[in-house]
């Protein structure tokens, strides 16, 4: 077995070799890679890290007011479509900036989750499994298999205004759990107590870790691991204080000065600095009343910062190694309720994907003319989960090798959307 591929521990070399697509696993033989062969192995081993940018439109964006408009039909609503940079793909007129960068993205217009519940929908989209089962989120899976062991930055950062509590790491080590940043301000208490040297601080941390190790030895580990992980995240933040320096006025002009604009700008910095998964939440799409007015406001806030971020990632040559996903927990009912709202709708809706490993400019699946059901290439959170991971070169059909257990990474009952993979 070779060392020195940029990874510090045997454990990590093993896991990378198990899961990176097409790796020569002959020497291990414990895990079958099921014949999947991805295009990205060589690059990754050269140290060109892959990463994922998740833009989560919380509450459920309307597919009819975004990626799958049906103007002039019974449930189409008042908005028109506009052409995009990809001939033949039209999206809602509320997304003019994104439309200009459509050639960097693809659409999946045939998602049926068979749930209309916020929580269930979110879990299915993040874990690739239906229900409350104890599985890690895609961000934690990616953090585990793609982030360098000595990562100086938090591997999986979520920038969000308010707390949705997520248990993202499940049975994976708590160090792969999401770190939540509330907005773009530096957390309090980033500096060591006065007069304490770095060495003294390190000595204290070491002693604390030692105490915890002794305490955990014969107790249940999950809660203690998550407590330990919070101290590791704190240490990472302390060493990366400059992330939170004032954002440049020039960049804010481009991104916008509202919260979501600032979050997108911070997301770019985090991706540049080496975070493996950056998730940005844009709140407020649960439009049971006044769906159309709300979507005008919400998407106006979303469109420019997102398009700017996408273009910046591409301009920096990072898009080939960054998977971009714009998703929700579900879409919204075609039927317009009496409050001019659209309700929860997991049965026929869309997301946008792009970047690393994704065929650009594609449209997968379709809904019928009124948008009330999927008529082509129906997929759910399970198919999408395999697709994200395979796009990043992770063999989602392999197992998580947890002490004493082998747990399939993706749901073995479903496969990736192969035609969407580059």
């Amino acid at each position, binding site marked *: 077995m070779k060392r020195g591929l940029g990874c510090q521990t045997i454990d990590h070399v093993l896991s990378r070799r198990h899961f990176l697509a097409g790796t020569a696993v002959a020497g291990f033989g414990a895990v079958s890679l099921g014949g999947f062969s991805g295009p990205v192995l060589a690059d990754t081993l050269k140290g060109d890290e892959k990463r994922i940018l998740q833009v989560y439109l919380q509450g459920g964006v309307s597919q009819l007011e975004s990626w799958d408009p049906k103007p002039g039909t019974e449930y189409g609503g008042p908005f028109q479509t506009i052409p995009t940079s990809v001939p033949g793909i039209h999206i809602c007129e509320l997304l003019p900036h994104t439309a200009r960068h459509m050639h960097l993205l693809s659409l999946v217009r045939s998602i049926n989750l068979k749930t209309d519940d916020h929580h269930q929908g979110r879990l299915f989209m993040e874990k690739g499994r239906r229900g409350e089962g104890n599985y890690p989120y895609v961000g934690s899976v990616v953090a585990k298999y793609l982030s360098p062991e000595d990562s100086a930055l938090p591997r999986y950062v979520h920038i969000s205004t308010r707390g949705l509590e997520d248990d993202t790491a499940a049975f994976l080590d708590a160090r792969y759990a999401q770190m939540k940043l509330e907005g773009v301000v530096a*957390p309090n208490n980033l500096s060591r107590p006065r007069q304490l040297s770095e060495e003294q601080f390190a000595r204290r941390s070491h002693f604390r870790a030692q105490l915890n190790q002794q305490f955990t030895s014969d107790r249940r580990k999950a809660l*203690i691991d998550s407590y330990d992980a919070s101290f590791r995240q704190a240490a990472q*933040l302390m060493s990366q204080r400059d992330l939170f320096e004032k954002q440049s006025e020039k960049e804010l002009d481009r991104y916008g000065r509202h919260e979501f604009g600032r979050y997108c700008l911070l997301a770019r910095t985090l991706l540049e600095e080496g975070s493996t998964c950056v998730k940005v939440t844009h709140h407020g799409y649960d439009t049971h009343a006044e769906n159309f007015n709300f979507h005008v406001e919400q998407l106006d806030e979303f469109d420019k910062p997102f398009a700017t971020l996408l273009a910046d990632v591409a301009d920096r040559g990072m898009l080939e190694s960054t998977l971009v996903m714009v998703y929700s927990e579900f879409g919204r009912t075609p039927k317009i309720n009496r409050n001019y709202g659209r309700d929860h709708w997991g049965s026929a809706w869309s997301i946008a994907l792009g970047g690393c490993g994704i065929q650009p400019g594609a449209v997968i699946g379709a809904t019928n003319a009124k948008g009330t059901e999927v008529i082509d290439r129906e997929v759910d959170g399970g198919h999408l989960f395999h697709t994200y991971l395979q796009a990043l070169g992770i063999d989602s059909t392999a197992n998580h090798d947890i002490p004493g257990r082998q747990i399939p990474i993706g749901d073995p009952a479903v496969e990736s959307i192969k035609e969407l993979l580059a």
Partner: protein
Amino acid sequence: MTNAVQLALLFAFTILPATVAGTESALLHEQIDARIAAAQGELSSSASPRSSDTEFLRRVYLDVTGRIPGRHEVTAFQDEEAGDKRLKLVDRLLLDPWHARHMLYHLDVMLMGRLPEKHIKVAQWRDYLYTSLLENKRFNQLVAEILLADGAVPDERPRARFLLARELNIDDTTRDIGRIFLGRDLQCAQCHDHPSIDDYLQRRYYGLSAFLGRSYLFQDPETKETSIGEKAEGEVTFTSVFTDEESTTAPRLLELAALDDPPAEEEPYVTKPEEKTRGVPKYSRRLQLAPNITSEENVAFRMNIANRLWALVMGRGLVEPLDMMHTDNPPSHPELLALLADELLRTGYDMRSLMRQLILSETYQRSSRLVANDPPLPESAYLAAALKPLTPEQLAWSTMQAVGLVETTRSEHIARFKEEDPSFDPNDMAQAIQLERAVHDSLQPHVDTFVAVFASKADRFSATASQALFLENGELITEWLTPSNGNLLERLLQTGDAEAATRELYLTVLSRPPTDEELEQLVAFLGAYDDDQMTGMTEATRAILCSAEFRFNH
């Protein structure tokens, strides 16, 4: 406090020991153990042994009084030889005013979920809860008082916080009443019958909301105080998004019979609702809620609070999540839950007596050390004590107890009280309450700081980087670790010897003596600071305050 109230409290405490001990329920804790053991079956061979005395002492202090014991309490308990010392400890702590304070914090979060102040002063509401808990007010009575309050009676105004802080918002209030008092989150039923859960019927949600549908917020034009008025008419209607059918419902509690209005009277009002007068109908739908929700027929009410008290003490509910009681999510131990619920009914909803029984069970008293965990043992089998993250309040008070702040504050107040009245005796119950209130009032701002940092919306533990930074670098704790006034750091420095300091540190912060290995380890750590003992002691203390052993109730 008035003399009358003091007398009443004194009386309450004089008769309480008998109440706490109960009579017929003496063996309930054995029944609990029998049912837990029966469900364990073959797994019982992996059950952890009984906790050690120090493990038990710390756990009981945290669960009953919301803070760790003082170091003298640790050594005294270790030295005590009486065979029933655990029983005696539990009975003593359940009567301590700190217990009322701890339960206040718990009930406040359960009932109000840390909602901001609105219409009612939070301090007055908490004082109402505190006084109620000192009297061991029965849970059904407490709930009835809260749900009956309209905010118009000055003395009873604090109780109206439950409804007023929610601004009587029909959706929030209906949902919270379902979650908090019935163990059911009916929110999903709001738009349509819940797609996957049979009993979450839309009409239950609207049946519950119909109790409140005629009530409204009324602002008194002179005092500007907001209270609750009610109209004598108005129906709750709802439209199913699936069928488009419009339905209407009278107030109705889950599966109990609907409460139809009495025949309409010619004059339906005691006071007619006008712009400047609060409407008071002769028949109030809202006032039917309290008697109905607490009625014997409503089994969900006692199942819910039994499950919540079990979860509080044992670290997980017999039904999890606590607000998802329904047929698709059965209890791990159905008979046990029924037994606890029946016990509450029998004792007239005596929470204190039920907590006592839970704590006396062997199930509670097991060590948190696992005998084996490969394959992982199911937590719902209760083979070992659960690790319970300290609540923000428990963490604040335990930290202040550990660094010596509670003790120095208490001594200051005792000195002050003695100056005013030389016969002041902190062992007298009424004066103990006075003292607890004074210590609490002095230190509550620090508790608020901890709440701001550590409170989480979710019921589950969620450790964040900002919390770690607060513990590692925060100025508040730095200040507490500055030697002064006989606090922990001053005592540690006075020992003048690393071994003695280590023992003192372990007894004070972790409520147990160190093992030989730990002694050696900490002495070595302090050895690096021979020329700067103060930094050494401060750093050692801070590391232990940041340790998992301190962060959890185990």
